[in-house]
């Protein structure tokens, strides 16, 4: 079965037990993301952004509700199946880059293909072409500590893209970068979107969300706005919305 929606969330809740208190990090979240869309998820800290991102990335499973990727319901999948799903469908880009310190840029980018059982030669070729596509062909054999922040995030993006996942999941990708470098990374995302990649960008910066075609605003675990990026982002900064 193929549905036009890449991602489909219906009445997702996620409860945590913190001490004796139950916390509702997500409380009935429903939305869909079509193939090729670029969606920003905005909200203040504690709004449930991170929890949503973990669920979208199949790192965590909802307490209730249905989450399907390409029509496949994630609920009830075994740990191994979730790992394989992440490997195939999700490309992660993290705020803190999360590169393996002892591995070269190339080895870092090859990693998702290692876990997919791609033969060495093909792995190498695909990793090299992914690094070329983010403009790092001359840094392939450098380790992360020999790279600048912007270069590290490019390596991370190459690693996220190398397996040709359905979804690029970027969590504050510019959060640890100066504004010029952050802008470069954002441009890279724009380019990927233009080439048809589906992107979910989690950010607390309305300025960035405003530049995305669509944005979802979370507050206290619920969706309070879902619409054009510019409008939803601006909604967040008006004094009226904060009141």
């Amino acid at each position, binding site marked *: 079965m193929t549905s036009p929606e890449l991602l489909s969330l219906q009445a997702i809740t996620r409860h945590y037990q913190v001490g004796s208190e139950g916390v509702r990090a997500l409380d009935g979240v429903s939305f869909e993301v079509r193939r090729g869309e670029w969606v920003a998820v905005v909200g203040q800290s504690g709004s449930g952004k991170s929890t949503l991102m*973990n669920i979208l*990335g199949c*790192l*965590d499973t909802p307490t209730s509700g249905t989450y399907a990727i390409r029509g496949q319901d994630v609920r009830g999948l075994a*740990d*191994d199946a979730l*790992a*394989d799903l*992440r*490997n*195939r469908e*999700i490309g*992660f880009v*993290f705020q803190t880059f*999360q*590169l*393996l*310190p*002892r*591995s070269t840029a190339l*080895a870092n980018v090859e*990693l*998702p293909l*290692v*876990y*997919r*059982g*791609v*033969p*060495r030669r093909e*792995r190498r070729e695909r990793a090299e072409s992914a690094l070329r596509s983010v403009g790092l062909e001359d840094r392939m054999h450098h380790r992360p500590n020999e790279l600048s922040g912007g270069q590290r995030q490019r390596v991370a993006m190459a*690693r996220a893209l190398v*397996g040709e996942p359905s979804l690029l999941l970027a969590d504050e990708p510019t959060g640890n970068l100066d504004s010029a470098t952050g802008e470069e990374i954002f441009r890279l995302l724009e380019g990927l979107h233009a080439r048809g990649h589906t992107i979910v960008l989690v950010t607390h910066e309305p300025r960035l969300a405003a530049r995305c075609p669509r944005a979802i605003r979370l507050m206290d675990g619920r969706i309070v706005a879902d619409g054009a990026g510019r409008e939803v982002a601006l909604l967040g900064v008006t004094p009226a919305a904060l009141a």
Partner: protein
Amino acid sequence: MRGLRRAAAELEESVRIALSTLVGNRMRSALTTLGIVIGVTTVIAIVAVIQGLNSSFETQIQSFGAHTLYVSRWKWMNLSGDWWKYRNRKPIGEVELGAISRESSLALAVSPVIPLTAAAAAGEHSLSAVQLDGVGSEYLRANGGSVVAGRFLVEGDLEATSHAAVLGADVADHLFPGQAPEEVVGRRVTLSGHPFRVVGLMERRGRFLGMAMDNNVFLPYTTFGRLFGPKRPMYIAVAGPPGRLSELDDELTGILRRARQVAPGRADDFTLNRQEQFLKVYQGLTNALYGVAVGVGLITLVVGGIGIMNIMLVSVHERTREIGVRRALGARRSTILAQFLVESALVAALGGAIGTGLGLAIAEGVALTTPLAAAVKPSAVALGLGFSAATGLVFGTWPAWRAAHLDPVEALRYE
């Protein structure tokens, strides 16, 4: 196919990461493996020396007396403390010797042995204690050994009660230092004050169970009886055909019971000893040593294993975020488990390899600097390596399991 390729790719990645971690933390890795190194070194060295001893011992046993029974009042290597039972037995003497010589059909060679410790001298050189053995002309065939120069005692020496002596290698070295064996033959020696002429020199036999085998002088037992008294305790060496020691045993038992007039139904009042008895006691000793070596080895391996477990727990802790990243990129729990198991097994096997090398070097050193031999069977090396790698696996399991069961979300967030 894909699963297999994936496993191979993951193993390759695990080994690569394990090696880079090993190299990246050289000091830590060295200290971690130290316990395993010490354990394996100890075991390999001890086992090498024991195996060397065993093989040289067995060769010696076979070189003389393998097909020989020793008729004696005493039971050899008797460790049970009932020596008084044997003490009251009638001594073995000419009667028994005569009976065996006359009646045994299986005996190939028969010789009495009458030992006595006495002083020996030649010119200005002297020895305060050598073992004088009064023996018969068939002694060499009965007990093993050979002469390098001159001749052994012959029937004529016995009949004539001649003052002929055959010197052991050590005795010859001390009394005639620096002289060739041929020069020594024909020279005079004084044994316990009596003059003797050297007719032959024994080939060196080395040590047997720590006893010097070359500190003897062989005399005709007839001469021995005349000089030192006829009632000395003797034992009789009787060599039989190879593989028929039990038949010889039965035959001699019958002959001796008649000669010593043992009433039917009463126990033998003599013992037919075998060299094997030494071997048995000896093997009992070396088995005990083996036990100790294995015990020491196991204890050190456990201690080393705990060291590995500790360092692996630290390593898992330090690499929490790395584990989270790997899980996010599609590593299964089993992948993470395997990665850390490979690492701990590799550390342990490295220790095992170093330990094996050191152990072999020590065994070689022992063999070169002491009379002990050393030999290592390939199986011992394989066992050392196998055991250390297994230690790594066993003690790496708990840390690896912890790593595999980290929550990816928590692991990624870990500072």
